[in-house]
């Protein structure tokens, strides 16, 4: 007897309702995995934007007078040269780099196409400035000085649009977490429903177990081990289906080659979170089944 696998006193493995549970859990875990990956991607994107733009400024001068936009513009444009000199002398400024017209054209190319006629358009002149994030220059003073040196100039620390992008990334992250929470709640409701069906279907066996001395916890154990097994099976199936989807998403994003889009390459701790999803689903199903059984039985005479 001890050599054979012990059968459970309540034959839950024969229930039709339990047969569909792994499939439903698999769908839930699949959705949760995608949502979680989305949350992680949004988080990574926000971090990248934040770190990429912190410690940098862009100074934008109005379009150069005719004949001054050529290469080596700083030397031929006194206003530009004055701003560069001012920046280099400002405490907290680490480097300055005047963007050449070719670089500006490259920035505009995605919107205006390759047929950009640089001579026909009044392009602003741009200076990329790196600042020391620990000891940044006083932006109000700097703005005033730059404006005095080159009227109409703008000193952009990117904070306005960066704040909007970070808000967006944060919202996406929160929404993804809410989706994961809702998916887990839906799984718990479903398991509670299936457990109640199981209790009703096996009421005679459960009554017998009680009559020969079983505690409610003994009956709950039967249900919770069954739910644990189904939840784990469903969770693994769901994760197995989510992984190719995530791989496909990553390949599509890589093809776009845009620095603005999130990177879907997961780091080890992010993989651990995804791998924990089937474990979490198994624990949620087990815990829900146990609580449902104990609560239902406690209401019985």
């Amino acid at each position, binding site marked *: 007897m001890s050599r054979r696998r012990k059968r459970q*006193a309540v034959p839950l493995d024969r229930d039709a309702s339990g047969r569909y549970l792994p499939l439903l859990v698999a769908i839930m875990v699949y959705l949760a995995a995608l949502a979680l990956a989305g949350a992680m991607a949004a988080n990574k994107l926000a971090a990248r934007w934040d770190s990429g733009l912190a410690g940098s400024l862009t100074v934008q001068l109005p379009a150069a007078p005719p004949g001054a936009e050529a290469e080596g513009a700083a030397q031929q444009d006194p206003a530009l040269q004055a701003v560069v000199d001012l920046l280099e002398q400002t405490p907290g400024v680490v480097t300055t780099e005047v963007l050449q017209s070719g670089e500006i054209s490259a920035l505009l190319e995605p919107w205006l196409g390759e047929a950009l006629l640089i001579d026909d358009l009044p392009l602003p002149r741009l200076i990329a400035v790196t600042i020391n994030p620990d000891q940044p220059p006083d932006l109000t003073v700097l703005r005033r000085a730059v404006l005095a040196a080159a009227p109409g100039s703008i000193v952009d620390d990117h904070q306005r649009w960066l704040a909007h992008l970070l808000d967006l990334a944060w919202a996406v992250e929160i929404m993804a977490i809410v989706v994961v929470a809702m998916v887990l709640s839906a799984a718990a409701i479903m398991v509670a429903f299936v457990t109640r069906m199981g209790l009703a279907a096996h009421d005679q066996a459960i009554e017998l177990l009680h009559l*020969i001395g079983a505690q409610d916890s003994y009956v709950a154990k039967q249900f919770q081990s069954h739910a644990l097994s189904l939840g784990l099976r469903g969770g693994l199936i769901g994760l197995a289906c989510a992984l190719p989807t995530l791989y496909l998403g990553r390949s599509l994003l890589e093809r776009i080659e845009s620095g603005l889009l999130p990177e879907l390459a997961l780091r080890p701790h992010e993989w651990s979170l995804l791998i924990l999803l089937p474990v979490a689903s198994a624990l949620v199903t087990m815990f829900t089944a146990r609580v449902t059984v104990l609560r239902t039985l406690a209401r019985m005479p």
Partner: protein
Amino acid sequence: MVRFEDVVLRYGQGPEILKHVSLQFDPGSYHFLVGASGAGKSSLLRMMYLAQHPTAGRVALFGRNVAGLTRQETAVLRRRIGVVFQDFRLLEHLTARENVALPLQISGEAGARSDKDVEELLTWVGLADHMDALPPTLSGGQQQRVAIARAVIGRPSLLLADEPTGNLDDRMAVRLLYLFEELNKIGTTVVIATHNESLVQRFRHPITRLSGGEIAAPGGSAAAEAPA
């Protein structure tokens, strides 16, 4: 061991099944409950194995009023009671061996030693060749013997049997009643509900006769009623 004081039982708004029943079975005694079908024998037993609470009156088991028991206390008390149900109540997906081992598993006593006890008991009731059979493949008599083995495997303090010999031939019925006697000799209180008067007359144990939900002959000695 078992004490009923002015117990009334009624299911819902129906008629009284048991009418002001008072009785007492002392520890280590052996009783027959006899009466025609519908006399209230099974209902009386149901209250003894805590499947039913009285509508009125007081039921005490092992010196405790059952009305105040929590679910946990009820479960612990039930482990001291072995029950042979009239309809056997075997779990059909479990083998005879697994059905008999169930009380041990529930009380946490399952193990190699208990496996041996289960095998010995099933052999004793003549089911050595059917230990791994599922109940639906067994005859009524064989199922009844599995039910009896399950009731006695945990060496209960109180053994309650509802028509335990109903599906058995006379030879096996007498043999099982002797098994109950052996258990009684080691201290088990035995209460057997049956309508088989001729079988009861073979034993010298008190008889409680029920009629129409009332006790017609409380604790009468079988010897006094039995032919010489």
